[in-house]
């Protein structure tokens, strides 16, 4: 209770520190430099990111709404949409369960080989999607290791839906785990320990303590995982066999239409995927803005 404190000597937080810093010319550039750099960055983003996006919708609607609608309601297109939704509906939950399990083990416990495990989880990101498809062809293709056995038992994985699911699971493998691991590491074990000491069992502890803590991070991971699962092209292209109406996902359908010079239809289906990307980005921004504090540090804005 020192009444005679000299406030001029107090730590900066009591002073109008930030505005002062912003006006402080030594830690920023001349106005014209700032303006120039901002303009250059925005022009670059405009040309490289926005223009392609605008292009998709322009090309899709070039021949009017009628053609657009026809392309989307074509039975092959509808089959492709259905297959894409099915594949994502299988692949995302699988990786969700894996992501939670891996994050629980890695974030809550100390064990040898943890760094190696974390690196291995990220591995699919550094593997070309085409190689991701190739590995399953080598295993399950007609000339692959299990090929003869599969043929003998009348099972088909390559050029069929199971292969597409496998390839999609592979390329979206790390998304949820790598979102949850840093988040759960930051949160530590204290909440769970408190729950346990109050008599919760393991499942209750996870269901009522951990899950509410990680729900926004989980949703963030699911969002990114789903966008990739629905949009994956290279890996799926290798294992699909491009059978119309059967093993054609939306991105593959775009390719087929494009190679048939049916550009309007190709861009129409592409615009659906672009719409998906936009919805993903909007939801992602909302999550970052509203629940940034409950995402891992690298995601906060």
């Amino acid at each position: 209770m020192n009444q005679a404190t000299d406030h001029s000597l107090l730590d900066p937080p009591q002073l109008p520190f930030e505005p002062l810093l912003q006006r402080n010319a030594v830690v920023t550039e001349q106005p014209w430099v700032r303006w120039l750099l901002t303009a250059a960055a925005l022009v670059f983003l405009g040309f490289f990111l926005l223009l392609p996006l605008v292009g998709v919708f322009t090309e899709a609607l070039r021949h009017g709404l009628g053609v657009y609608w026809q392309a989307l309601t074509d039975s092959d297109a509808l089959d492709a949409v259905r297959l894409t939704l099915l594949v994502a509906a299988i692949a995302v939950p699988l990786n969700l369960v894996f992501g939670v399990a891996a994050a629980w083990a890695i974030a809550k416990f100390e064990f040898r080989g943890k760094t190696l495990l974390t690196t291995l989880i990220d591995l699919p990101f550094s593997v070309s999607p085409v190689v991701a498809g190739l590995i399953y062809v080598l295993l399950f293709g007609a000339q692959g290791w299990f090929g003869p056995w599969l043929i003998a038992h009348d099972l088909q994985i390559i050029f069929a839906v199971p292969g597409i699911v496998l390839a999609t699971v592979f390329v979206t493998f790390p998304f949820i785990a790598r979102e949850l691991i840093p988040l759960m590491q930051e949160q530590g074990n204290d909440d769970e320990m408190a729950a346990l000491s109050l008599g919760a069992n393991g499942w209750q502890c996870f269901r009522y303590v951990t899950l509410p803590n990680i729900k926004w991070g989980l949703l963030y991971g699911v969002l990114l995982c789903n966008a990739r699962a629905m949009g994956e092209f290279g890996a799926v292209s290798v294992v699909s066999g491009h059978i119309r109406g059967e093993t054609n996902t939306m991105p593959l359908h775009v390719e087929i239409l494009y190679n048939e010079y049916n550009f309007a239809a190709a861009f129409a289906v592409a615009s659906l995927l672009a719409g998906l990307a936009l919805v993903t980005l909007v939801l992602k921004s909302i999550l970052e803005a509203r629940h940034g504090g409950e995402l891992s540090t690298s995601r906060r804005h």
Partner: protein
Amino acid sequence: MRSVVAPPAAGRPRSALPGFGLSLGFAITYLSLIVLIPLAGVFTKAAGLGWDGLWQVLGEPRVLSALKLSFGTAFVAACVNAVFGTLVAWVFVRYEFPGKRLFDATIDLPFALPTAVAGIALTALYAGNGWIGQWLEPAGIKIAFTPLGIVVALTFVGLPFVVRTLEPVLRDAEKELEEAAASLGATRWQTVTRVILPAVLPALVTGFALAFARGVGEYGSVIFIAGNLPQVSEIAPLLIIIKLEELNYGGAAAVAVAMLVISFTLLLAINTLQAWSNRHRQRSRAAPALPHPVLQGEGS
């Protein structure tokens, strides 16, 4: 049987939480079934060719030029992204301008937009009659259906890697250091190049490597714009698909292994670099803040 004698704490989870065995067991099983065993299959297949067979495939002029093209264009695109990605990250972290939130969200577009969609959109833009192509073609610059088109596609795909890796580091960079530099007489340019740049360099290299690694394996956005001429604009992933269609599984595996080995080496280098820069940052943070004389006397 040394483990019997070892103290119980060694190698055991030090946490009282349940579910370690279950979650780790499941994670490792799933990882092995989906990723590790299938990947090992490629190496086994390529090894089946023997050294001579492997070198024979990788020595084919078509394979060599595809690998060179994939790694070359990915490198150029990563360089472009290192420059413009740094610019974008700098502008978004340091400056305020209208529409910033909107532009910020679009930086992640290449992560969210399916690669095939990006591919046909870029091709439409840069083709001779496209919005951008119609201005460049008269000037003698052909982008679509040339290696230059591949660079454009890979720049699109790789940009967010550089920006998103740099941003948090730039945001955390301490302005006190810049003030100190300025107060010691450094010009703004000197401060930027000698104080800020060294601090963000590890992140920049990481972002560069991530963009590069992604570019090497990229397929969807490239094949539409590349033109796919053998030995001119045919990328390595496409060559894998062509070999698969010829039922030349061994050849496909050989090209894949060459790509994987180079990518894994890169990944290892990134991780080492990141571990090193984390240690570096922690050490500089670890210096305890000096207790403030005034606040100390006042608190209690």
